[in-house]
């Protein structure tokens, strides 16, 4: 096994596992019952999936073009922004009144939000 084959194998493993994670994200978006559980799948697996695919591209183009700094920046930006996006989507869903799944066990945020809404209504 020469150097080229080893690099190609690493690239294949990275890109294939990234694709597999993206597939799992999509299946999770269909199967999970409510928006909050879907945000779990979307914010975690999609992050690592995209990061692995970008990493595979980085390793692949390293042979002839050297290190591409834009790919590294892309990996970094995805890593920083996607958990924040998941948080913002689920927060705005909660405040616009999207219900949890009916089999949910507990909800400690509900009294806080209701109190806040009551205070806002009285202020008007």
């Amino acid at each position, binding site marked *: 096994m020469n150097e080229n084959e080893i690099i190609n194998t690493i690239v294949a493993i990275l890109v294939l596992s990234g694709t597999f994670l993206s597939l799992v994200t999509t299946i999770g978006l269909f199967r*999970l*019952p409510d928006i909050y559980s879907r945000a779990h799948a979307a*914010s*975690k697996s999609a992050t690592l999936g995209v990061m692995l695919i970008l990493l595979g591209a980085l390793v692949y183009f390293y042979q002839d073009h050297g290190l591409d700094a834009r790919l590294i920046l892309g990996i970094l930006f995805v890593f920083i922004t996607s*958990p924040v996006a998941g*948080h913002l989507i689920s927060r705005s869903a909660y405040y616009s009144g999207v219900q949890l799944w009916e089999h949910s066990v507990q909800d*400690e945020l509900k009294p806080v939000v209701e109190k806040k809404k009551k205070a806002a209504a009285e202020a008007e």
Partner: protein
Amino acid sequence: MAFQLLLNLILTFVWMFLYSSWDLPTFIIGFLVGMLILIIVRRFFPGPLYVQKLYAVLKLTFIFLKELVMSNMTVIKQVLQPKLSIKPGIFALQTELKADWEITLLSSLITLTPGTLVVDVSDDQRTLYIHAMNIDDIDEAISSIKNSFEKAIMEVSS
């Protein structure tokens, strides 16, 4: 902290002036020599050495990556098993962290932890409301993990 880094850079440039050569290897050697000098004179600085903080930042990055991989394992397991057995719920968590960036870092860490997602931060920034995929079996384990996250973040900020 920033002062120590600046001092190290100044020492590096003094080293480069002494050699009067302006390439990367000289810079790196000068930086390492400056770091050694800073370690020798560390008792004259009021705070801890910046090298220690660098180590804490590296440790935090490593925790981040490990948790990302672990949480993906959990998501794959939950999504691909034939029968859905999740028990979601929202619970509150008290945090001792004060600064804004620390709380931001903690909530993105929690979001990347297996089975948890931050839904809201209370107005006084003392409580995080977290949506958990499986409330009964993870609840205890999660609070212990969070203690380790909080401790790692505190090590960086102290």
